[in-house]
């Protein structure tokens, strides 16, 4: 019998923080708000660490029942928590990175008038995210799933007085709704055919089933619908469009929600459902194809972006594509591994970008940066490490996980591998482009700053020249930098994979791990990463006039990339406009105004007209009343006689 670990405390602690700050924070001082937020988030982290320490003594999967929720017939969905290797990894990543970003936010958001609101939302997000990763059935997971969507909406639209932020929040929410629709239908199918949503029960009833190789069946349908949900939450083609816009939120939010944790929920969900996917090869193939295409497609967009956060946003989409590629080729543990390392280095990149933005007074356009290396050396160091990590330069974290994915992809099909390597090259290129544009060359933003353009953004507070961020922001950067440096070593010798193997299987993990092919492929991906670096160095450091020339010579194609392949415009024409027009013309003007409103108004008008007529009976003349009474009695008597009442 397992000891009771009180797992429920882990999500509920941040919820308490959210409630305290949300209800009482308005009048409290900033110090008090920070203390509450950090305490409850940190407490969750400490509990997660404690659980990790106790982990080896538990019999897995460890489940804890909290309360009844829905029970009818044989179906039951309870508030219950589920702890196994997979949720432990997610738990540590979410609470750890989350706590670091909480600390960072104290510095980043200090001047914001809605300081308490920010931390209340941030803690709320932690609650939902932890519910998501600790859920023991799909329904509780769905609570977390929707909840993080809500928190994401609230935080993207945090500066809601800014029109673009408000609409970005709505966009994120609506696009996610499409994904959730698929997720929900998958849940309905599970209930209908397996009578349960408990992970244990569902997987137990699915395990004996064979793979649906001969064609698409129930499991394929469920898998594809789950993937629709995952594509919405994790910003995959075709539902990725919300993530770049989500950069309207404060930068710590982009780091926490839109890079490190929430957007990886889809990967977690697919990995959690690997039992289903493994028996639905066509669904798995769709996952792999979507992941691969997304990785490549988003990376190409990233090349031409000039907004530092937009580059990182597309990079996030691209890296998520890698994770789905891994899941799609059956290497779920490699996907989770990349999820973890990505949380480190992408969180670091965003926090670094936040520090850069902070340093230059809210400017996000990289064309107005440059040469910041000497102004903000610590941030530069952190960003440099993160860039090396994401580019896949050994021995940093990104290298291990990305290489693992590419190797596993190669075993399934060289096409995935090839696109993956090309994407790795592009990734390396645009990341070093970002680095060179931001930190090298001459500072290009002085004039704007000096002329007192205070309308740049939120934290423009009288900047003279770029300055380094306070310690409270730098320390999380340093910790994440260390994790990005060394976090990859947990994958050394497939340790990470073996750790996750009881959950995710993966015994097929090519034990021929030392074969020449693997070394060769590793060499190729290192080569791709390094050549991306060199190319970026050539274009953006050695010969800075070249990119413009190349862009000019490419002409229309370059413009297409700059405009993100006009996907937003395409969606606007295909989906948004018909929806808006249809709603306006048909639903509003025809149905609502001409039918529903008209029915109500006509009923009212009709009653008015009838009353107008009937009103004349009430003359006030006593004799006319007497006449009506008499006539009425006469009618009643006539009726009684006619009906033969004796």
């Amino acid at each position, binding site marked *: 019998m397992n000891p009771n670990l009180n797992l429920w405390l882990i999500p509920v602690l941040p919820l308490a923080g959210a409630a305290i700050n949300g209800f009482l924070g308005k009048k409290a001082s900033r110090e008090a708000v920070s203390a509450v937020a950090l305490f409850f988030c940190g407490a969750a982290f400490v509990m997660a660490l404690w659980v990790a320490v106790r982990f080896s003594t538990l019999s897995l999967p460890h489940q804890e029942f909290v309360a009844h929720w829905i029970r009818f017939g044989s179906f039951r969905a309870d508030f219950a928590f589920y702890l196994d290797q997979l949720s432990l990894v997610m738990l540590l990543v979410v609470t750890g990175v989350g706590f670091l970003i909480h600390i960072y936010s104290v510095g980043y958001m200090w001047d914001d008038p809605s300081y308490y609101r920010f931390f209340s939302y941030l803690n709320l997000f932690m609650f939902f995210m932890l519910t998501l990763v600790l859920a023991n059935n799909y329904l509780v997971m769905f609570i977390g799933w929707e909840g993080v969507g809500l928190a994401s909406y609230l935080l993207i639209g945090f500066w809601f007085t800014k029109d673009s932020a408000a609409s970005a929040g709505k966009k994120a929410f609506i696009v996610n709704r499409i994904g959730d629709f698929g997720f929900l239908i998958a849940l309905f199918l599970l209930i209908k055919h397996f009578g349960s949503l408990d992970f244990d029960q569902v997987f137990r009833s699915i395990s004996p089933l064979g793979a649906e190789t001969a064609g698409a069946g129930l499991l394929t349908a469920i898998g594809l619908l789950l993937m629709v949900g995952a594509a919405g939450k994790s910003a995959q083609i075709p539902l990725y469009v919300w993530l770049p816009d989500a950069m309207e939120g404060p930068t710590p939010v982009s780091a926490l929600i839109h890079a490190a944790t929430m957007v990886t929920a889809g990967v977690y969900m697919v990995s959690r459902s690997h039992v289903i996917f493994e028996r639905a090869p066509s669904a798995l193939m769709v996952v792999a194809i979507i992941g691969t295409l997304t990785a490549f497609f988003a990376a190409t967009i990233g090349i031409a972006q000039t907004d530092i956060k937009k580059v990182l946003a597309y990079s996030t989409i691209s890296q998520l594509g890698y994770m789905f590629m891994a899941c799609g080729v059956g290497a779920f543990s490699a996907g989770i591994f990349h999820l973890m390392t990505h949380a480190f280095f992408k969180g670091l990149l965003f926090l670094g970008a936040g520090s850069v933005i902070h340093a230059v007074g809210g400017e996000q356009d990289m064309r107005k940066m440059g040469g910041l290396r000497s102004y903000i050396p610590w941030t530069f160091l952190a960003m440099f490490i993160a860039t090396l990590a994401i580019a896949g330069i050994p021995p940093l974290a990104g290298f291990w996980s990305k290489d693992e994915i590419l190797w596993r992809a190669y075993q399934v099909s060289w096409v995935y591998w090839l696109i993956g390597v090309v994407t790795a090259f592009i990734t390396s290129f645009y990341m070093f482009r970002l680095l060179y544009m931001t930190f090298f060359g001459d500072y290009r933003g002085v004039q704007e700053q000096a002329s007192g353009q205070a309308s740049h953004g939120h934290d423009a507070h009288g900047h003279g020249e770029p300055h380094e961020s306070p310690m409270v922001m730098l320390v999380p950067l340093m910790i994440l930098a260390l994790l990005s440096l060394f976090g990859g070593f947990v994958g050394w010798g497939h340790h990470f994979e073996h750790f996750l193997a009881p959950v995710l299987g993966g015994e097929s993990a090519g034990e021929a791990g030392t074969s020449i092919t693997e070394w060769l492929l590793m060499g190729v991906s290192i080569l791709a990463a390094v050549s991306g670096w060199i190319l970026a160095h050539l274009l953006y450091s050695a010969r800075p006039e070249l990119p413009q020339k190349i862009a000019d010579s490419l002409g229309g194609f370059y413009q297409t990339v700059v405009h993100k392949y006009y996907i937003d415009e395409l969606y606007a024409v295909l989906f948004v406009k018909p929806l808006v027009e249809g709603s306006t013309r048909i639903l509003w003007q025809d149905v609502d105004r001409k039918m529903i409103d008209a029915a109500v108004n006509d009923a009212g008008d009709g009653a008015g007209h009838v009353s107008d007529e009937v009103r004349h009976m009430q*003359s*006030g003349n*006593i*004799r006319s009343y*007497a006449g009506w009474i*008499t006539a009425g009695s006469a009618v009643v008597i006539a009726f009684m006689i006619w009906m033969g009442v004796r």
Partner: protein
Amino acid sequence: MVPSYVPLSYYLLLSGFLFACGVVGFLIKRDIITIFMSIELMLNGVNLSFVAFAAHWHALAGQVFVFFVMVVAAAEATVGLAIIIAVYRTRETLNVDQVNLLKL
């Protein structure tokens, strides 16, 4: 006992005639006192049929009802006459066509 040589229908005809007189007076007269008297006439027309039936069926209930009607009529007369006086004091007329503020 009602003498048996006067049939019930005679009483009822008289009762109906009295009631009809009351209705007509109620409808065509303008003077409020006359209208009031017409109402009394209708009540007494009904009373007559009550008593006639009571005698015919040897049932006392009809006679008891008549007493009730008379008591209520007396009370009504009191209240009604008081209202009439009040109306006259304010309107200085008893013509009902000029007392038409009931709709307000």
